[in-house]
């Protein structure tokens, strides 16, 4: 089962929200859609969910146009948080589950499982409006996949969650992946994307800057991030061949190299055959790549 977007365009009267977007998500994969505010992420989600029509292009699920698939295959957590404020937590989950065609008995088991997993047992019979923001978010999240969808879209699922709940959510996403659910999610927090995603698409003002595996994206930049701890002064390091930029982070230097091939010669200079405390060559973090791409250099 795969979701495929081919040449998808969404135009409004005076601007283009999404322009020629192409990507493919394999079955059971976690796919990240990243971009700044207004990049076209939510519009893309809405087109996939058939909440908005695309101007041109095709969106298919396993070869079938997305409009024709059973709606209950899909699950969605919108970016803005909100549920029925007057409904009790359990009642809410029953309502969303039944609306997706699930029987009460089966739902009961699922609700018990997730309420327990997300530590909401005490809140089960409370009205949603009395819950804290984080707890409301957890209820909404459960509501989005309580019907066991095959394909789940999570729009900014981590925003507003504290570190403990963020871990709970990460575990839940990985658990769903294990169960074979295909997940598409957006996030501003690149560490979450880096940790969870197999593949991603980087959007800037409706245009895809990159689409593919995370490793491929990193390989595009190569291993150009060099962290070292040395007594050599910064002015000396700046003179070394292949060094583009130097940042001082506490007792460490973080060098950005023009190319990873310069690393070896730099090692020889800074170690000079002596013991060196730290010399680490890495790929750029997704956060750095994102800033570089979206910051304007990537176009």
């Amino acid at each position: 089962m795969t979701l495929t977007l081919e040449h998808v365009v969404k135009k409004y009267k005076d601007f283009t929200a999404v322009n020629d977007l192409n990507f493919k998500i394999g079955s059971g994969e976690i796919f990240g859609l990243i971009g700044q505010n207004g990049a076209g992420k939510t519009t893309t989600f809405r087109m996939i969910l058939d909440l908005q029509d695309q101007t041109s292009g095709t969106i298919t699920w396993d070869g079938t146009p997305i409009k024709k698939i059973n709606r209950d295959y899909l699950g969605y957590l919108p970016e803005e948080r909100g549920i029925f404020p007057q409904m009790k937590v359990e009642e809410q989950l029953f309502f969303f589950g039944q609306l997706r065609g699930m029987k009460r008995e089966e739902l009961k088991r699922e609700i018990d499982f997730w309420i327990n997993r997300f530590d909401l047992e005490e809140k089960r019979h409370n009205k949603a409006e009395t819950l804290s923001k984080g707890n409301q978010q957890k209820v909404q999240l459960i509501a989005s996949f309580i019907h066991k969808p095959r394909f789940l879209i999570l729009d900014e699922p981590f925003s507003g969650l504290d570190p403990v709940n963020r871990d709970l959510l990460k575990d839940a996403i990985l658990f769903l992946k294990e169960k074979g659910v295909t997940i598409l999610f957006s996030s501003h927090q690149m560490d979450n994307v880096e940790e969870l995603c197999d593949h991603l698409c980087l959007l800037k003002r409706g245009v895809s800057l990159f689409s593919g595996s995370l490793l491929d994206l990193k390989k595009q930049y190569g291993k150009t991030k060099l962290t070292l701890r040395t007594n050599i002064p910064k002015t000396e390091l700046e003179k070394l061949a292949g060094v583009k930029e130097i940042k001082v982070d506490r007792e460490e230097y973080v060098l950005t190299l023009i190319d990873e091939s310069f690393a070896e010669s730099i090692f020889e200079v800074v170690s000079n055959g002596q013991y060196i405390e730290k010399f680490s060559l890495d790929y750029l973090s997704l956060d750095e790549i994102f800033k570089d791409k979206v910051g304007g250099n990537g176009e």
Partner: protein
Amino acid sequence: MVNKLGLLIKQLYKQKVRAKSFILMTLLYVVVMAVITFWSDIKAIFVNDEALEVALINETAVELEPIFVTNEDIAFSFPAESTESVYEQLKEEEYDAVVVVTEENETLKADIATYGPLKLNDQSAISSFVQYAGKIYGIQQLNLTASEADKILNSEAMITTTNLDESVADGKSEDQKQSGIWASYFVGIVIYFFIMAFLSMITTDVASEKGSRALEMLLVSVKPSTHFQSKIIGISLLALTQFVIIFGSLLALLRFANGGEKWEMVDSILNELTYSYVFYVIAFLFLTIILFLIIGALFGSLVSKVEEASQVMTPAIMTALVGFYVMISGVANPDTMLIKVFSYIPLTSGMVMPLRIGATDINPIESIISLALLLITVIAFYMISLSFYKRSVLTYSSGGVIQKIKTVLKVTT
């Protein structure tokens, strides 16, 4: 899809019917209706309404006692004592008034003596007795028999109406028109109150779902059209529930209280109404409420948060208010041009047309045209709203109603 529609309706209905505001509002309506119906009885409990004690001193040769008959407002007595002695008793407040009737130039003359001031109502009541006595006195001066006198006083012309235009049914009698006015006044008030209550309910409900973003989650599994329909049907059912509770209890009160005395009055009004009138009233009532619910749901979908709901509702509420006041103006005179014009405008025809049907000699074709216009408007509004709703429920914008509509059109076309 039917199941999803059913689930949405059930959820909406259950949530609203259990809401404290709905229960309290329904009870309040029942109480208000009961108070209006039994106003005279309630008034009697609180207002000390003892009959006025009036002494009548007849100084004429004519027998006037049978004319001054004691009723629940005035108790007449005919003391044989002298006028002075009766006046003394008046001062001692044994009587509220003393009426001394004398003859002068073959005309009856009455002097109403009081010690304390008389209420206007009581004064008028005594005066009308005296006036009647004056007439009897005048007739008796002509030496007529009692039955001849009675005939003069009580004969009334029989009036029937016939319209020679065959397309118009024979004219309604005054009684029928009066009943029509009362029934239509009632229908107008019902439509108005239901519009006010349920227009606001549907608008705020859609607005709150949209504002809380629960709608986005719902719309992944149900089509906007299903959601829209669920709101219209759910709130209509709620309105029907309230209608049945309020009028069911009202009818029960009328039927069983005071041995059904009030029911006879309602029954006499109902008897004057034709089946076609009842059909039109139900059709206008139903279609007008549906029309306002469609507008309410559409307007609710335009706002970004529930706080803005009252802002978008205002135009619809103002329209209903205009219709209501036009209907009220028609209670005094249902044949004005204003009534005619508003009886064709779909948003107001529900309140105004029943008045014309019930209280004027209207050509049936006019009622059919008005109803057809309303029906076409409901269908057209439904179709337009459905397509617009789909686009507006996921569009968030600020500004006034027109600005919101412009934004929806801009970002969705």
